[in-house]
């Protein structure tokens, strides 16, 4: 389906925050490419600017220098902030299903407010996608009454309803327990296999990064720069048995070493938060 869409290219992206008189270089001369149709993981110590990149793509904030292109078109530049839109849907760390709407109403929300589908067609499509994702039976539940696993899956289905070019996931599984997390991972891989949507996925969890990703980009400690992209050459479709294979351990080691090096550097710079992320 969307196999040819969703190529993201970051060139020399720089962003500085100015809280008070301080200048915090969140991201500096950051360049890398996200191939279309892949699951692209960004890993790195805390405060390395992962979320800054994602927010720029989403259109939540601008960048100071450089460009970000989506399928060749300029998405953001120093004097051009992207507007949020249904081609680049974010799934939030804390979850952002509307608590006052049922899961079904949440999932159908995008096409209805965009006037892309009639209410009836949107609800029908939402039901079908929910059934595909194993969410059948939860249509009329309110978000607060279902497990966080169901909430996360529903939020991803809500995003997919819009046939997005890129799905932006900001540590969506951070708060989940290990078992639920592994189920979420398999479910995400299934969803990806079906939709072929490009996924930009930010995470702390390196095992998650290697298990899910086609590639894992490692960022340097602040100011965040692209350090290297590690190709995860594990075959698809994957299931959890893969985590015990030697190749998986090898790749995980490679990613861990790269991230660890940066975290140690951050720690030495006195950025305690960066250090903690790895000690954990």
């Amino acid at each position, binding site marked *: 389906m969307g196999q040819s869409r969703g190529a993201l290219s970051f060139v020399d992206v720089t962003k500085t925050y100015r809280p008070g008189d301080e200048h915090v270089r969140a991201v500096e001369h950051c360049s890398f490419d996200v191939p279309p149709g892949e699951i692209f993981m960004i890993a790195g110590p805390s405060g390395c600017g992962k979320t800054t990149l994602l927010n720029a793509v*989403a*259109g*939540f904030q601008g960048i100071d220098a450089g460009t970000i292109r989506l399928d060749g078109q300029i998405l953001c530049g120093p004097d051009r902030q992207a507007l*949020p*839109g*249904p081609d*680049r*849907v*974010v799934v*939030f760390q*804390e*979850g*952002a299903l*509307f*608590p*006052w*709407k*049922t899961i079904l*109403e949440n999932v159908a*929300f*995008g096409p209805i*407010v*965009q006037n*892309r589908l009639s209410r009836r067609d949107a609800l029908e499509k939402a039901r079908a996608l929910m059934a595909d994702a194993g969410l059948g039976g939860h249509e*009329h539940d*309110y*978000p*607060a*009454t279902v497990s966080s696993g169901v909430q996360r899956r529903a939020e991803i289905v*809500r*995003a997919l309803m*819009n046939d997005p070019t890129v799905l932006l996931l900001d540590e969506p599984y951070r708060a989940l327990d290990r078992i639920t997390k592994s189920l979420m991972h398999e479910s995400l891989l299934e969803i990806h296999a079906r939709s072929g949507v490009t996924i930009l996925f930010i995470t702390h969890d390196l095992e998650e990064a290697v298990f899910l990703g086609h590639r894992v980009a490692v960022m340097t400690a602040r100011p965040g720069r692209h350090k290297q992209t590690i190709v995860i050459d594990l075959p698809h479709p994957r299931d959890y048995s893969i985590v015990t294979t030697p190749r998986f351990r090898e790749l995980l080691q490679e990613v861990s070493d790269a991230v660890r090096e940066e975290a140690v550097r951050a720690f030495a710079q006195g950025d305690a938060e960066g250090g903690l992320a790895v000690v954990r």
Partner: protein
Amino acid sequence: MAAPATGEPDELELIAYRLRRWVASPRPYLALVGIGLLLGFWYLTVDLLQLPRFAQMPGLPAVLHEFLSRNPDYGTSLFTADYYQDVWASLRRIAIGFALATVLGVPVGLMLGWSQRFREYVFPVFELLRPIPILAWVPLAIIMFAGSETPVVYLTFLGSFFVTALNTLLGVRSIDRRYLLAAACLGARPWSVFRHVIIPGALPFIFTGLEISIGIAWFSLVAAEMVSGQYGLGYLINTSYTQVEYPTIVIGMVTLGVVGYGTSVLVRAAGAALRRGHTRGG
């Protein structure tokens, strides 16, 4: 909203169950004891001990006798039409004032929270007028509005309006930024955001505001009725005082307590019902 049709019987059963639980629990009896202690203190200080400062106070037997008399000494009891005319006059003013305050206060509050431009124009005025006590408005209200009824309704409206608008504003400001970002991501235009995020997101605060607002409405009403107007419980209390019909003062006060409590319960129940329909479990 296509809320799922939850069975009515379930709801009724639930209410019956809660009622049984309540009767079986110590709570209703403790409440009775509390009320009994208050009445006992009143009876003790005024009638039995006849404390000096309480000499002029109407005692519990005198008030009860007056309240329950078919032929009250001062003309107001449960069996006189005058009494109900006063209750009705107050209730009517409350209904109009509170309804107006809600119908105007909620949209103004939503706009204050939603539109920065609107907030910049209106909020300073709002903050300037809001701290002025209702009593300070009484003379202007009488000058501004003809007759005796409109000023009272206006004053009842005014206090409620500020509370409702302010709580609605706070409700909008309390909405988590995530929901606004999510709506933007999903392609919602401003009007859809307003309808699907701002209004439902602010709803819990709005209802809290309405619960406070109905209390303020009674406060303003009685203040206004004591100064201007004819009929009404505030009027009854004030005229009873000037005409030295002391038991009637207490009749008016007790009635205010009961009727005011009733309206609060109604507002709370309406809020709970609406919220249940909107965010079950949320």
